[in-house]
């Protein structure tokens, strides 16, 4: 004896039936893993170059050193990528914590917007500065500037 229920009746629609917009949870989850792996390489590469590879280590890091680095496209892109991934990774983590622990809808909305605005401001300012940075400001002491400023 077999009985087949042709139309199983389950009056429990998926939770977010009334949700608007696309569901980015899966994309967010994958982003956190991928960006984490890339960030490990970027951050340890950054630290190794600045502190181990460069003679003098931490004492050699000054305006001239940073200006010289930000004049090269390689380091510009390295730093911009690190900035974007780190800020997005960190703020997405903060968003997760807020979703998990903040229950009052008003406070939750405010907190999520605050995180979003902070991330946007940091990313825009950081990107702007990295690409528009002038390593050789006029009238500055040449001894404090990168070595190639003397040739200008």
């Amino acid at each position, binding site marked *: 004896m077999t009985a*087949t229920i042709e139309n*199983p009746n*389950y009056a*429990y*629609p*998926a*939770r*977010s039936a009334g*949700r608007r917009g696309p*569901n980015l*949870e*899966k994309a*967010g*989850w*994958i982003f956190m893993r991928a960006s984490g792996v890339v960030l490990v390489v970027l951050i340890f590469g950054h630290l190794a170059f600045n502190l181990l590879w460069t003679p003098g280590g931490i004492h050699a890091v000054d305006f001239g050193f940073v200006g010289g680095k930000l004049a090269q496209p390689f380091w510009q892109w390295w730093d911009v990528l690190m900035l974007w991934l780190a800020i997005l990774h960190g703020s997405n983590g903060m968003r997760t914590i807020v*979703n*998990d*622990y903040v*229950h009052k809808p008003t406070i939750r909305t405010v907190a999520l917007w605050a995180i979003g605005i902070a991330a946007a401001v940091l990313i825009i300012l950081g990107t702007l500065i990295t690409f528009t940075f002038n390593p050789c400001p006029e009238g500055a002491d040449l001894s404090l500037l990168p070595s190639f400023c003397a040739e200008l």
Partner: protein
Amino acid sequence: MSQSEQKNEHSLGSEGASEAGDPSAQAEAAVDATTADAQAVSAGGTTPSPADSAAEGTARQVEPEPVEEPQSFPVTIIVRRYDPEVDEEPRWVDYDVQMFATERILDALHRIKWEQDPSLAFRRSCAHGVCGSDAMRINGKNRLACKALVKDFDTSKPIYVEAIKGLPLEKDLIVDMEPFFDSFREIQPFLQATGKPDKERHQTIAQRERFDDTTKCILCAACTTSCPVFWTDGQYFGPAAIVNAHRFIFDSRDEASQVRLDILNDQEGVWRCRTTFNCTDACPRGIQVTKAIAEVKQAMISGVKL
């Protein structure tokens, strides 16, 4: 027997406790043994002698083996009581019970209910770890009361017993399980296959093995109510629902895997899992819950691999 006991008591009174053991042991041995054996016992004691071995040919001497009486020990159980008609807030109440090493927390609760306070309310059905009725939070960890042995706890300290967290408390150790079962129903926990074969639906041993672990679930809610995400947001489907979805998603006979993956690919679905492993630790059936959730996540990214 009663005579010898009386005699023993008498000698205990007059001669002292240290000598009281010998006469009674001899008397007990003499009751069941033959006359010859009794003589051998009274003459030679326990050391074997030629007379003893000769006597064994006719009737074997029975040495009463010292059987240790099971010793009970006092245990303090502190239960989080809540009576919605009286209490505004739940309160902790202590009970002292005498327990044996072979007994479980459920036995302690029975002892409290039957001998001390009949108003204590808790669920239990089979009492053997199969029905999943008596999941509770014991010393801060979700366990089945019928599978938690008292001797496995530090009985020099009180044992705290409370209802599982994250579900509405109804009375004492009883919670409203409906939100939990709603999540379970939502993932469509039934086989969905269109073809109607003449006989059974065939499956290889390997295909059956693929989802074997998640078939063990007894829906006790120990995993879901140990999950920190579920505590703070009851909307989360919870480990138990995902485990039961896993059981059908990876079943080679089922055809609705994608439907279940779509349901769980929700804002309140598998992506809320933070892999804290509380659920794996809590599961009384030893299901690798966090692994099952990870496999469902994997199936959403790269498809179901049976």
